[in-house]
């Protein structure tokens, strides 16, 4: 699927990067905890989040993420969006909750990025 498919399924509004909607996507992660995203995500993926501070964009920049999905209709400030655009990130917003957005995207074939869990470290 492509980012354009995500926009359609989530009934989302494209905030930045409208020229890159044909980018293919295979995986996603959903988190408001940037510490976890930085620690566990190591592929160019999609981040679904309810956090709209500048560190979401900086985290995305460090990890070369492809697309940011803001849920519950959240929209970051213009300067944050501009810095996302500078990096070539696609930014979209949907009125859906994170739970519903993830469910619909999973149903469409998007899968979670493989991440180690706390259980792995304990050998469970």
């Amino acid at each position, binding site marked *: 699927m492509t980012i354009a498919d995500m926009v359609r399924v989530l009934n989302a509004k494209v905030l930045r990067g409208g020229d890159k909607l044909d980018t293919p996507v295979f995986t996603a992660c959903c988190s408001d905890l940037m510490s976890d995203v930085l620690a566990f995500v190591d592929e160019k993926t999609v981040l679904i989040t309810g956090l709209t501070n500048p*560190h979401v964009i900086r985290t995305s920049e460090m990890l070369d993420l492809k697309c940011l999905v803001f849920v519950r209709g959240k929209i970051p400030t213009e300067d944050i969006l501009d810095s996302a655009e500078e990096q070539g990130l696609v930014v979209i917003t949907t009125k859906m909750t994170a739970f519903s957005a993830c469910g619909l995207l999973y149903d469409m074939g998007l899968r979670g990025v493989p991440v180690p869990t706390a259980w792995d470290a304990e050998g469970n």
Partner: protein
Amino acid sequence: MEELFRISYPVAAADYSSAGKASADIKRRLKQLGVGGDVLRRVAVASYEVELNLVIHSEGGELCLTVFPGAVQLVSSDVGPGIPDLDMAMREGYSTANEEARSLGFGAGMGLPNMKRNSDEFDIKSKVGTGTTITMRFNLSA
């Protein structure tokens, strides 16, 4: 070893809005120097984590990038307060971050372990009342 490039960035304590700017610049400069792929991502993540740590925990410090022919080195040094228990600090999930850092999505106790995981060599020295120095090296594949 011969230094090809060196740059230092001052990092102010509690300057949450600027946190990450040095790391973004480091990433851009390394990219210009032809560093890419997995190693660039690892340097960027470790740099951002260590820069955040300077902002969240230190009383101010600096982040220094040095590029050698076969490696990239990041050194973070601060003027305090120092870490009383390094073993605890290196543990995943252990954090002394304040509410402001947590509200921004950080302070989950992943920073130091994540720096260690992303770097090829990791060294941390800390003395309470003096400060902390973290040295990380990343090997560049030929």
